[in-house]
């Protein structure tokens, strides 16, 4: 079998083969160890996948992990009280799009990227809700940053935090006065695990006033 393989570099048929294991990882999708093959030309000492066996294995594994990404991310949202229909509406996706991605296990590459973005930054759903209007987006971004600072700059997974806050008083509330969001108030209340009492008022984008007690 190995005698039929030809080195693409020097043309020699003196090829040896070996196997090794590699870990493929996908954020939110987990990891999987795969067995890969490597050829080695004993004449010119060039290593490589001369039989093109690895690409198929890698592609299948990447597809499998990406399908898991969709399931894991959508489960995170659903478990935290988000409805897929509402997310589809906010993101202007046809109804049942997210459910189809989840059930078929064959999401588009763009779909996986979108889900990773909203999983990393769930406040992007608020931005989508505001029709991606630039000023609103900036204010939501600033308020999220303030929330981060008010929590002693601790990285808190918002989806996990939301589940906790549902059981006690809400940690943060947005108040939008009108569609253009010229005024926004953020109230941070104390919770059992985190003593916090702050008020933030944003009148216009450049003017920030903040009081913390």
């Amino acid at each position, binding site marked *: 079998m190995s005698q039929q393989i030809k080195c693409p*570099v020097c043309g020699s048929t003196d090829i040896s083969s070996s196997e090794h294991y590699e870990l493929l990882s996908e954020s939110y999708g987990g990891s999987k160890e795969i067995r890969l093959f490597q050829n080695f030309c004993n004449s010119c000492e060039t290593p490589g996948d001369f039989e093109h066996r*690895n*690409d198929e294995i890698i592609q299948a594994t990447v597809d499998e992990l990406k399908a898991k990404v969709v399931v894991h991310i959508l489960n995170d949202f659903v478990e935290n009280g988000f409805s897929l229909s509402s997310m589809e509406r906010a993101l202007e996706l046809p109804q049942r799009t997210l459910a189809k991605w989840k059930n078929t296990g064959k999401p588009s590459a763009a779909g996986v990227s979108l889900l990773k973005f909203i999983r990393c930054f769930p406040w992007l759903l608020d931005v989508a809700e505001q029709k991606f209007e630039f000023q609103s987006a900036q204010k939501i971004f600033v308020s999220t940053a303030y929330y981060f600072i008010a929590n002693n700059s601790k990285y808190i997974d918002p989806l996990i935090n939301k589940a906790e806050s549902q059981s006690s008083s809400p940690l943060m509330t947005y108040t939008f006065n009108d569609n253009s969001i010229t005024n926004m108030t953020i109230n941070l209340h104390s919770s059992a695990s985190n003593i916090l009492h702050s008020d933030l008022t944003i009148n216009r984008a450049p003017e920030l006033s903040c009081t913390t007690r």
Partner: protein
Amino acid sequence: MIDDHVRVIKEFIAACGNTPEKVIPINNVLHDARTYYKIFTKRELLEFIANGGLEQLVFDKRKQWEKNFTQQRPLFVYSFKFKSLHLPGYIAIIENNIIGNWLLKSFHPPTKGNNPTLGDKFPNLIGHSEE
């Protein structure tokens, strides 16, 4: 002959799109592409190159391939530096006239890893290593 690297890179990029079967990634190219650039397969890598993925391409150097398998005809390694969005990169290719294909010898960040050597930091003083 001075601008040979221009012809080489143009023909290589064209080959990635038109005759991908004649472009052969060797050594750790595919592993590095996976590790550093999230490019998982040979097809993805060649499509990336063929579709203008190598931005701000700058010629680095031309050097005789030390591991050439025949002494009868020298083969040359052409290396280039590039950017992909904000990521810097280094690519080295060989026009294999003997077999009639292209060898993609290196595809990784200019200084692999977090511990660049003195040669990486002071290339003019120490000289270039064959990456």
